[in-house]
């Protein structure tokens, strides 16, 4: 049934809308129209406040700092970073994996939850998808930044050339190029497709050049039934295409490590372990960003405890998987009876990098365990704090995997340590600013919540009269 919304069966958004409608009625306001949703969601668009401008300036300054550091690194040589022999990969690859991980929950929320008809995704999918795009854009920089000769980066692509040399498709790094670029392309198309009706709504809201801008971007969307039928189909298919990518991309990224012979990397559990970790970190980042959006744009009515609790559950689940993976790694090292593997893992917990290791365990296993308590799952400040912890923990997880494994490899004479340099720290700051810069631009340029889907819910709720039935009990909906 083409017109069927995927949110049948009730969900938190409907409940919040019902609440909102209720309160309007109680205050004697006229019945809300679909225009109300348009108005509420698109109110912040293109209306920059001084706070926004200040924040944007700060992050742009950060981007410039990172850019300058990178330029220095290209000019002088990658030796200005702290990476060395034997630790050939450090903060850059840590950040690459970190940002690819962040990118994961976006597609998970929009595509997989769409296919599973989990209605609670509606208010968060737009921002989560945007986060995905920006996270991939950030992640994609790091394979470039970490190259010794970035000016030849295009050699990693299979382009026809006179020299007839192709990349080596056995190399996990080439697989990376394909996995990440595919993921970026599909995520971008999926996101843009979802935006089309909203862009049309914005076109109608504005006059002049703004109308022209959004009109062009909306590709002439008229909202006819025929358009909706095709649109729904396309969206469903794109969701279908995106879904395997959620699993594949981070599996491929994990193969950067698992396909090597480095003790601590060479492990068959890496693909599921990394995918779980990616979702874990991605959900945490969604929570962090959503709390920010909710606070900044006054979207309390649309982003409720209900949504956050669902994300918290996902966080808890993936935390358990990640914690299990940590334990399994140690078990495998023990069970392998391979002294080199065993030494590598013992050193991870007891050696020079025991600090990062125990931060990782604390942030990713201990802190999320508090989410067993419903009260904490529904406390937005608590979740915000926990999500920050998880972000930190997942950053350290990648650091621990990459650096500790390389630092203690097979030949003991070759052991060494790694400390990031100021260039790497500057690029780290730049990367976070780069990500937030795009997110801030997005928040002022596009609706952060899908207007079309919200309106569907509004119509749907009125038709079925669920508003009153569920008012006040949004949390009961599963």
């Amino acid at each position, binding site marked *: 049934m083409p017109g069927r919304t995927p949110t049948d069966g009730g969900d938190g958004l409907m409940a919040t809308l019902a609440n909102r409608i209720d309160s309007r009625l109680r205050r004697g306001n006229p019945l809300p129209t679909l225009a109300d949703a348009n108005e509420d969601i698109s109110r912040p668009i293109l209306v920059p406040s001084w706070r926004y401008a200040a924040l944007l300036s700060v992050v742009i300054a950060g981007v410039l700092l990172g850019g300058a550091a990178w330029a220095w690194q290209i000019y002088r*040589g990658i030796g200005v970073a702290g990476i*060395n022999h034997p630790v050939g990969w450090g903060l850059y690859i840590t950040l690459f994996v970190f940002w690819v991980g962040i990118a994961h929950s976006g597609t998970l929320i929009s595509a997989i939850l769409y296919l599973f008809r989990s209605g609670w995704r509606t208010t968060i999918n737009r921002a989560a998808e945007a986060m995905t795009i920006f996270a991939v854009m950030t992640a994609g920089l790091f394979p470039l930044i970490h*190259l*010794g000769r*970035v000016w030849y980066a295009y050699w990693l692509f299979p382009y026809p050339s006179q020299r007839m040399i192709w990349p080596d498709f056995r190399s996990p790094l080439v697989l990376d190029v394909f996995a990440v670029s595919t993921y970026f392309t599909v995520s971008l198309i999926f996101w843009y497709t979802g935006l089309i009706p909203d862009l049309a709504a914005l076109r109608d809201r504005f006059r002049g050049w703004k109308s022209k801008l959004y009109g062009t971007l909306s590709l002439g969307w008229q909202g006819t039934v025929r358009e909706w039928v095709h649109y729904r189909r396309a969206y469903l298919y794109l969701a279908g295409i995106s879904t395997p990518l959620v699993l594949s991309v981070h599996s491929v990224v994990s193969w950067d490590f698992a396909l090597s012979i480095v003790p601590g990397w060479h492990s068959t559990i890496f693909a599921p372990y990394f995918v779980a970790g990616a979702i874990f970190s991605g959900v945490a980042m969604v929570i962090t960003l959503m709390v920010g959006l909710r606070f900044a744009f006054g979207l309390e009515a649309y982003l409720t405890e209900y949504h956050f609790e669902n994300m918290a559950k996902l966080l808890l689940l993936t935390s358990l998987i990640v914690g299990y993976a940590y334990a399994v790694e140690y078990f495998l090292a023990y069970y392998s009876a391979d002294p080199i593997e065993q030494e590598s893992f013992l050193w991870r917990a007891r050696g020079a990098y025991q600090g990062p290791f125990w931060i990782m365990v604390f942030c990713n296993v201990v802190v999320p365990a508090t989410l067993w308590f419903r009260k904490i799952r529904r406390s937005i400040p608590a979740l915000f704090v926990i999500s920050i912890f998880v972000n930190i923990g997942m950053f350290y997880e990648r650091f621990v995997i990459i650096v500790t494994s390389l630092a203690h490899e097979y030949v003991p*004479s070759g052991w*060494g340590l790694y400390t990031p340099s100021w260039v790497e720290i500057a690029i780290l700051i730049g990367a976070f600013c780069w990500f937030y810069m795009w997110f801030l631009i997005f928040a002022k340029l596009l609706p952060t919540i899908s207007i079309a889907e919200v309106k569907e819910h509004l119509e749907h709720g009125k038709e079925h009269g669920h508003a009153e039935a569920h008012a006040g009990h949004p949390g009961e909906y599963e």
Partner: protein
Amino acid sequence: MSGCGCSGTGSPRGGCCSAGPSGPPGTTRRDFLKIVGVTGAGTAVACGPPDYADKLIPLLVQEDERVPGVLDTYATAMMVGAEPIALHAQLREGRVIKLEGNPQAPNRGRLSALAQSALQDLYDPDRVPGPRLRQEGSAEGVDPVDPFAEATWDEGFAALGAALQQGGVVLLTGGTPTARDRFFGEWAAAVGAEHIRWEPLGYGAVLTANQIAFGRREVPTYELQRADRIVCFGADFLGTWLSPVQLAIRFSVARDVDRGRHAKYTFVGPRLSVSGLKADEWVPARSGTEGLAALAVAAVVAERRGNGGQLTSLLARYSPEAVSERTGVPAEQLRRLGEELAEASAPVALPPGFEGQSFEATESHLAVAILNHLLGAVGDRVRFGGGPPVTAVASLSQMADLVERMRSGEVRTVIVADANPAFTLPGSLGFVDALRQVGTTISLASHLDETAAGCSWILPSSHPLESWGEIDFGGGRRAIAQPLMGPIFDTRQMEDALLQGAAAAGRPLAGPPDFAARIREGTRSRFVAEGETRSFDEWWRALLAGGGLLGRTAEPLAEQPVLDAAVASYGFAEPAGPAETSLLIYPTVQFYDGRGANRSWMQELPDPVTRAIWGSWVELHPETAESLGVGNGDLVEVDTAAGSLTAPAFVYRGIRPDTVAIPLGQGHTAFGRNARQRGVNPLGLLSEGADRLSGAPAYAGTGVTLRAAGGRGRLVITQGSDTDLGREITKLLGVEAVLSAGHEAEGHDVDLAELVQAAYDSDPNSPYRWGMTVDLNACTGCAACVTACYAENNIPTVGAEVSAQGREMSWIRIDRYFVETEDGGFQTVQQPMLCQHCGDAPCEPVCPVYATYHSPEGLNAQIYNRCVGTRYCSNNCPYKVRRFNWFTYEISNPLNLQLNPDVTVREKGVMEKCTFCVQRINRARLAAKAEGRLVQDGEIKTACQQTCPAGAIVFGNLKDAESAVSRKSHAKRGYHVLDELYTRPAITYLADVTHASVPAAHGSHGGHGDAEKDGERTEAGSHAGEDAH
């Protein structure tokens, strides 16, 4: 306009050059290109190196013997420390790019690290570029480091001549068995100067002891190859003492298990040097008591063999039990050593060397001479008369006397040549101050060293590789040194400068007026003696081509002395009561007496014992370190009566708790960019204390007090863990198991050679699969291979800062692992580690751009210009032998002239590693192809293999079952490092062999590294406190 004829140097005659690239109106495309070409060439010339290299191939009409692109080999010779070395220098386009040994000479074609790095002295940008005169007067505008102004040679000769006429001249030189040394004598006699020789590392104690013992003031040769039992009382004969290359060759023969022999080797002394680490057994005698230990051993030998004779009463006083307490060695250990020596059929004892140069060094040597006499070694394993004539140098008191005369004004002129007393004399003598009080001081140094910096004139001499010379190898063998190229700087052959000076003074020497002719004429008597039928010119040319008179002469063995009967009544002095902690100053393989310190290859060469680079350190026993509360890199202050210094600690288990050792050679205050202000000079801690009988400076035995100075110093240690944690990276086998026939216990159960030839490893159609064997039993860790590799493969040095981050570039490194023995001691395995050229290489499939790939001949090749620098290959290399160019490293002009044109110079962002010297493989393959044959075994020698004194490295074709490398790969001792990874390395290591009791299966003791103990390479610390106070 087309006929303008502008030269490359770009004179603006005519329109075209001045028109510039934009061109005047009407310029055709052809003109434009011409202009661009000419201006481009002009710019290139203007920016290029000085005019001696302004054209890539400078010869329009080729000279004979010089074909661009073809390697020329010329024979020459030079002194390396105290060892005469005959060379085959390799030249490309008229520049020396690599030194190899002359196979005809006693060094058998092999070189030490110090010899390999002589090229860096030749091309050193810090050489004095021409005559220099000190700027007198106020400090205003005068650079304190280089207060010299340019002068002309004529002015220099005039000054020299004037000084000679004044009288009161002292010629202060080194002491070498060369024609130069003889010339110094003749010259001094002719001009009426006093000739004083000074070498900090002299052999006065040996000469004096042999004078007493045998009535021969000579240094014998040690024929270790004939020995079946070796005991060394301290000399670092594999590193720095006497002739380390030759002795290492002989030592490896004595311990060649493949020929069914393995002479047990015991080291007696307070500290394990390079030679000490190779020993099967360590008798840690207290510093200065080596002689007592030798007497105790001799007592046991005499008792056992019953050959004590008149010595019996002397030796009775030195039974092991009697000396046990004073030497700090259990009597049983000395007794067992004596018994083993007595039972051996060809035992030999080596003397204390520099490390045993205490206040009673001569007596220590005498004790060893007595022991050798009792062992029957004299005349067989210890031979007189066949070696280079070692010259006696001034004693410390003579030098003190000279300093006094310089102060008093009695000496009016000092001419210094081939010596750097300002650095190598104990600081307390005050040579530097005295030098300032001498009227005319002339240095003939090539570098602005400490002595030159204090002189009024510098008349820089050419490098030995730019000079004529003749070196006496002993036994009638003489090498002729010929200049390999014109002088790079405005320098003169040292002897020619002195001849000119003598002429200017009106006291010319008899004979030809230039040194080259004097050398040539000097051989005429030999020509006559040989009854040659050729003309003298022909004979002389052949002599030069062959490197001199190097063939073994038929001269009968010189008459061998017997122990002087008077020795029996010799009264040995009682060694001074043991200081609580005593100092030991030792030379290193990198710097010798400090002369190697400005060579970046040497600074960046990990010390074979400590693995430290670019600095100084104080070696402390773990107990001593603990009592001071310091660890590696923590600053320690060392105080003596004469001075004090502060340097980072190195905690070393191979030293006695009551001894601290500091390497010699660092702490320069001048000399050049790499040497200056780096590390500490321990000679500042010495007073005038010297060996009582010979007057040689006492490098051992000075009492010190230690104090933790607080803070960290810079100590860059290139090795991570000191043990291989049972990973079987190294293997150490018991000698019985190896030598006994049909031993199966340690044989590998896979046919390694077959494995290596597995289909994957090379193209089945290729006749070659290059491979290597590295014999850990032969390897002494001398690190010559490392430096040879730097020279051959254009490997940059990166400096202290960058090395501290683990970024040194050595393609071959030596890992030194300690292995615990069953008796609670330890053994050391030195393991050269280089690219294993795996058949199934982990680095290959991970490269995204095929920059690392497998060649049809089985080489694991790296294509520099394809590399994008992901470093994944390095991460995935289990041997950690890949090196990344973190920066583009500068190679200062004229050091760039040393670069091998056959090897690419790499830029930043590119991975590199050992290529098995692919340029040498290609050269041989092409030559073979031109002749329509396959490359023969032994035709290709990698740089590391070529130079290895011990012959530990064998390279060749594994597909040729008869090749040396194939046969060696099948050895029972053979194993592949990290075999379990199935990387199928092309390098087969042959296990080290020891007489010590190693655990039955060395390597099976768990694998749980103690994270506390087994460290990573040391981090960089602060600069604080590096300088001596």
